[in-house]
């Protein structure tokens, strides 16, 4: 019974590897990590690169692969959405050309050194590429445009505010008719970068009401109910009157859920749109040096119209020191993803595009890959 699924997975994996073999049959079989890129007569690039990492950007990569292959029909990108941690490990071990990750290389875990060692002559850089806004979704028929401050959000998700007509919620929503139904706060039961980001946001903006350490696993002390995966969150909120949760913007839109306005650092309640989220990323502080664009998101951003809960995912690769056959393909793929066309494609998928100065910095960093 359970094995049917596994068999199917094996079959798909088998088919994928067959595809992978088929596309670079012009090169001798090498180790699975290496690949080749060479300019073909048609003008496009050819070859295969392997990449792995965050599932949060899997949809974006899928979309970019299609666009990239229109211009380079001979080239293929294999992206394994195996999770950020697994992606970084694969990058350090040299089995992938770049890793997608929900967080930059972590100094505490010693990842930058290991990644630099992998790059041999150069160093590893974090390039912010996909911005995933996190929506606060709820289910209260008749109450649209709920306004929530980080303090109230922390109270709700820490199971301290338990009914919808709580005075703290009323204070921010004087005109809404709030029912006395109990609040059912849902969180991700599996480990997730979305949880990580959301708890970081709560910690940064409402520390007195959110005593828990941020992390990918939901803090058990905060109670609440779990649901598996973003789709699990979306369906749970949809089915449960009086529920509230956080989920990637695309899921909120696709499921037609009510989305709350969240207050930013200046106390302005901002509706979530791709543009309002992009404003927060634009003003993020660059913590890395040179072309390493490790960002520090200011969850307390005071920029007018900036929506504060955003998840920035990175592409991690070598500035210099990638194997010669991979450099060209990685560079041209990332150039495409950072192009106006590449970023515009994100909007339809529920991501926010990069903009302004940040986009310029990203392009400069990609230009420097050699």
């Amino acid at each position: 019974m359970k094995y049917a699924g596994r068999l199917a997975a094996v079959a798909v994996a088998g088919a994928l590897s067959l595809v992978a073999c088929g596309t670079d049959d012009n090169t001798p079989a090498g180790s699975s990590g290496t690949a080749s890129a060479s300019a073909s007569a048609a003008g496009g690039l050819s070859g295969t690169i392997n990449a792995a990492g965050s599932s949060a950007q899997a949809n974006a990569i899928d979309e970019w692969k299609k666009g990239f292959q229109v211009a380079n029909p001979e080239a293929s990108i294999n992206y394994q959405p195996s999770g950020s941690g697994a992606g970084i490990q694969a990058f350090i071990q040299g089995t992938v050309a770049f890793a997608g990750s929900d967080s930059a290389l972590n100094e505490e875990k010693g990842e930058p050194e290991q990644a630099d060692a992998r790059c041999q002559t150069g160093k590893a850089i974090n390039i912010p590429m996909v911005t995933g806004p996190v929506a606060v979704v709820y289910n209260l028929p008749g109450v649209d445009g709920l306004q929530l401050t980080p303090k109230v959000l922390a109270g709700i998700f820490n199971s301290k505010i338990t009914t919808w007509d709580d005075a703290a919620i009323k204070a921010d929503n004087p005109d809404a008719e709030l029912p006395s139904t109990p609040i059912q706060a849902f969180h991700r039961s599996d480990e997730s970068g979305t949880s990580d980001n959301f708890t970081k946001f709560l910690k940064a903006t409402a520390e007195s009401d959110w005593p828990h350490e941020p992390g990918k696993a939901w803090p058990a002390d905060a109670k609440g109910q779990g649901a598996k995966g973003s789709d699990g969150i979306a369906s749970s909120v949809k089915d449960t009157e009086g529920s509230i949760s956080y989920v990637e913007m695309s899921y909120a839109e696709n499921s037609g859920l009510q989305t709350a306005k969240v207050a930013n650092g200046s106390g302005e309640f901002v509706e979530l749109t791709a543009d309002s989220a992009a404003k927060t990323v634009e003003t993020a502080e660059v913590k890395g040096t040179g072309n390493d664009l490790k960002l520090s998101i200011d969850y307390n951003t005071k920029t007018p119209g900036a929506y504060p809960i955003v998840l920035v995912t990175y592409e991690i690769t070598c500035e210099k020191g990638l194997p010669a056959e991979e450099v060209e393909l990685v560079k041209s793929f990332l150039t495409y993803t950072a192009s106006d066309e590449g970023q515009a494609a994100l909007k339809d998928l529920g991501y926010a595009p990069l903009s302004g100065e940040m986009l310029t910095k990203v392009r400069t960093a990609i230009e420097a890959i050699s």
Partner: protein
Amino acid sequence: MMATETTTRGGGPATRRPASRRTYGEGLFRYVSTGAGITLLGIMAAIAVFLIAEAIPALQANKGSFFTDLIWDPNGSQVFGIGALAFGTVLSSMIAIFIATPIAVGVALFISHYAPRRLAGPLGYLIDLLAAVPSVVYGLWGLAFLVPVLREPSQWLNDTFGWFPLFAGEGAIGGKTMLAGGVVLAIMILPIIAAIAREIFLQVPKTNEEAALALGATRWEVIRMAVLPFGRPGVISAAMLGLGRAMGETIAVALIFPATFDITFRILTPHGNSIAANIANGFGEATPIGRGALIASGLVLFVITLLVNMAARMIINRRKEFSGADS
């Protein structure tokens, strides 16, 4: 061909050779089956050694108590405890068994003794078909259909029988509850129990049934006097098999349970978790310590299942004496 050969070679070998071939076959078969047995033991031992070897470093790194802490955070603070998970596993499986066994026995009796033959075949086949549905489908069905449907009955149970500890609770009633998980598990284990019970009931010696009928028993009395006593050990072992299946079920309960870490008997409030569901939730992004911790929880599940099976064996052995199975 063989026959012509033997006749040309004379009588001696013709009588000896089949004998020697038979012993050769006997020996070969004995080695093959012994080998299969040993291989199984070897695999079991290898799994056990692997699980224990992987679990020990994580258990040593645990900064809390593995048996009492109601939290699971091996990747961050490295505090994790099995209590809530083991409790949820046992409680949800118990609910499942409690619901599934009577229904399964009823279904089995209907097929074996009441249904017209034309109906019995297809019905049995249909029940077997239930076992072929992938468990993720049960999970999605439970989440999308059963959870909303159970909301009102749950509220009613709570309003009417709220004094009973299982149905107690205030605030949010219904939704992703132990009850919802238990019902889905019950449906999943129903075919196993029903199929085994059906086979057992069909094996009731006809003489027993006819003797009861001859004494003037009605059909219900026949079932009560001849069929059920004969089938009891089989039904118990079928239920235990279902229980093992329910405790090991992973993805369906991972989808339905709200993954809370507390111990409560309130099956109508949104609480619930299980060892297998926790493994499914946590395996994807686990650190090495986290993976070890999950494997340690798997060992606990292994031990619980072992205990349940041993208990079932004991019950069956004790019941056998007065079940009438030897007639």
